């Protein structure tokens, strides 16, 4: 039901039950917010969004106050603007002034608000609490001094990811965001997904950068640099350079990376295809033996850490396959090194991921053999954009180029890995061929493409009626695991991605996470799949070559040494 309200002397339509903020933004009136998060219950903590409502004694927080029929609202009266400005100035009173040296310089909500509200001087000088920066995590740096206590990280960590690593501790002016017993992040239950980075308006969380080391390696003549980028990167990076969200710029990206000086540019989607070959083989073996089902995907390193910590008794469900990042790394340092006549230690192998957890994964001890790590440096999408800017590459004046062979060839199934459900779709295509010896005819599986935290469907392949579940937004896995334990499900395969929507919305992506942009990224992935002539991983000619020349067949001993691993329980403070 709609009704009229008066805003700034004009009549607008408001909907019964919505908040003042929702009514305003639907009518194109912008009110600043800080603690507010779309789709979360508002907390009303920061008071940035206050508006004047005639007849009310106090200013009302627009984000949490319901709109009512009698309301006459002023959103930018001198009183309101002054109140917001004072609020902001108080927040800034104990926030450092070092914007120039901050990773988020130029992309910071606080900075933007300060400019919008025309803050020109430090009016209040607050007592600054001294906090140490916590660099202990392989993925995430925590700098509590920057925190303005908006609570967004605490909420996403609890309500979307479901691990509650972060929490407010103490109170009053000693309040801070910390972990259980105020342990450093590496000793906490943090699964390194980086969603706290995505929501923090103040740069209190950011990724542990690998850029300086990478730059040095790029200029080390003794090192051969190989880079590969994940399926989600080429449909995201455009946004960092002012191009349309969702535009696929793989061609321009290849050109840029060559200009920067990488010796080889590969596509991680190749390794996603390889991953599907191994996954399908492992799955069929389990299916035939009726053992360790449902099988859990193991591509998402946050999910792997989650199950190691929370449900170690279910680890046998987890696939033994390494993730595409690690498979690519292992192939680069073995097959590729051999074919180029290089020693593995002469190769510096870099991956670009939409993810911070991949930094954690790359340094896991399981990913190092005889002192050779599969992957030496992992960049987030954001770091890649920085690198491109640093090297003065002008995207708009480059000609698209193809990636290098052999690991630049991919099927569109490999590309689908970027979105939640994509792995499952890709797997079904190859399973269909392996089980029935016939290609699937209907490629698109609508159930897998829904935007939902938990999707479930049945799919018939040959004599098997298989149950699939797809999780994104890790909090949703808790109920599923419970259902599986209680025998309430009839599932054969479970895909889990920690970030809501999958890698296209990962913790290494451009900040802030823009829901429209995320949708556009998914759409492009599906369009690529629609148009591509190679739609299944087992049709990727280079993957087939790799098996023939090096790996033999899926699940071979060589595959086991290079492409598989074993995960073990992990004891942390839960």
């Amino acid at each position: 039901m709609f009704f009229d309200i008066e805003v700034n002397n004009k009549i607008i339509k408001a909907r019964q039950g919505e908040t003042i903020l929702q009514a305003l933004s639907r009518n194109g009136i912008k009110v600043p917010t800080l603690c507010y998060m779309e789709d979360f219950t508002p907390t009303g903590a920061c008071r940035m969004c206050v508006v004047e409502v005639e007849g009310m004694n106090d200013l009302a927080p627009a984000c949490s106050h319901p709109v009512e029929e009698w309301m006459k609202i002023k959103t930018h009266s001198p009183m309101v603007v002054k109140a917001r400005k004072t609020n902001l100035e108080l927040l800034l009173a104990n926030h450092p002034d070092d914007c120039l040296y901050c990773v988020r310089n130029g992309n910071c909500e606080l900075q933007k608000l300060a400019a919008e509200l025309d803050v020109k001087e430090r009016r209040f000088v607050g007592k600054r609490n001294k906090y140490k920066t916590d660099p202990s995590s392989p993925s995430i740096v925590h700098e509590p001094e920057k925190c303005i206590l908006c609570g967004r990280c605490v909420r996403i960590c609890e309500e979307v990811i479901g691990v509650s690593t972060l929490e407010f501790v103490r109170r009053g002016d000693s309040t801070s965001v910390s972990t259980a017993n105020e342990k450093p992040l590496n000793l906490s239950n943090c699964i390194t997904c980086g969603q706290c980075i995505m929501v923090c308006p103040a740069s209190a969380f950011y990724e542990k950068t690998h850029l300086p080391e990478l730059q040095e390696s790029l200029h080390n003549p003794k090192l051969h640099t190989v880079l590969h980028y994940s399926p989600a990167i080429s449909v995201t990076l455009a946004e960092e350079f002012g191009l349309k969200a969702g535009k696929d710029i793989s061609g321009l990206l290849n050109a840029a990376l060559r200009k920067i000086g990488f010796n080889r540019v590969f596509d991680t989607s190749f390794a996603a295809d390889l991953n599907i070959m191994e996954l399908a083989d492992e799955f069929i073996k389990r299916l035939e033996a009726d053992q360790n089902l449902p099988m859990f995907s193991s591509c998402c390193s946050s999910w792997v850490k989650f199950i190691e910590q929370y449900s170690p008794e279910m680890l046998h469900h987890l696939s033994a396959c390494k993730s595409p990042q690690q498979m690519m790394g292992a192939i680069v340092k073995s097959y590729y090194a051999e074919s180029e006549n290089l020693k593995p230690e002469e190769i510096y192998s870099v991956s670009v991921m939409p993810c911070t957890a991949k930094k954690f994964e790359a340094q896991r001890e399981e990913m190092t053999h005889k002192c050779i790590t599969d992957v030496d440096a992992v960049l987030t999408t954001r770091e890649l954009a920085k690198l491109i800017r640093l090297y003065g590459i002008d995207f708009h004046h480059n000609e698209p180029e193809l990636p290098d062979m052999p690991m630049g060839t991919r099927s569109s199934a490999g590309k689908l890995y970027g979105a939640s459900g994509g792995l499952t779709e890709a797997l079904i295509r190859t399973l269909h061929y392996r089980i029935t010896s016939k290609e699937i005819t209907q490629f698109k599986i609508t159930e897998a493409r829904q935007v939902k935290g938990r999707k479930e469907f049945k799919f018939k392949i040959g004599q098997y009626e298989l149950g699939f579940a797809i999780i994104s937004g890790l909090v949703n896995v808790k109920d599923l695991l419970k259902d599986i334990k209680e025998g309430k499900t009839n599932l054969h395969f479970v895909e889990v991605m920690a970030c809501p929507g999958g890698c296209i919305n990962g913790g290494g992506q451009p900040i802030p996470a823009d829901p429209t942009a995320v949708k556009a990224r998914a759409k492009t992935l599906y369009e690529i799949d629609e148009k591509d002539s190679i739609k299944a991983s087992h049709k990727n000619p280079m993957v087939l070559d790799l098996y023939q020349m090096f790996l033999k067949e899926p699940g071979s001993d060589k595959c086991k040494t290079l492409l598989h691993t074993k995960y073990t329980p992990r004891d942390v403070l839960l």
Partner: protein
Amino acid sequence: MEIETILEKYTGSQRDNLIPILEEIQEERGFISEEAIVKVSRFLKLPASKIYGVATFYDFFHFERQPAYHIRVCNGINCHLAGSDNILRKLEEELKVKAGQLTRDGIFKYELTGCLGACNSAPVIKINDEFYSGITADDISQIIEECKMKIKEA
């Protein structure tokens, strides 16, 4: 009493019992240890961060062993003018630790505090719940001796 024994008494209880549980642990064990946080979190099936967050919200929970005698030296304006500095210096000399630290024997801890509200008898110190007013640095040795005696007797 072991933490487990305390928890057993609360079998089947929910998160609304968190504060009573923590209180009882503190009463029995003197403070809330890291181990206690973990055990309570497992027991109530709540994240350890939440337990720690709630516990640190309240002033009356301690997270380290508490001294038998907690000496608070008032630093309100009157006490400050009346020489709380000297008292502090004397305490450091006698107890051989810095303000805020526990003595080696675990008996004493002293620290500066905001106004204790006994301004007309400045300078004041408060040991646990007892006020000592109008004292000078010279009184400190004797006060400390008395505390030690009481411990011995007990």
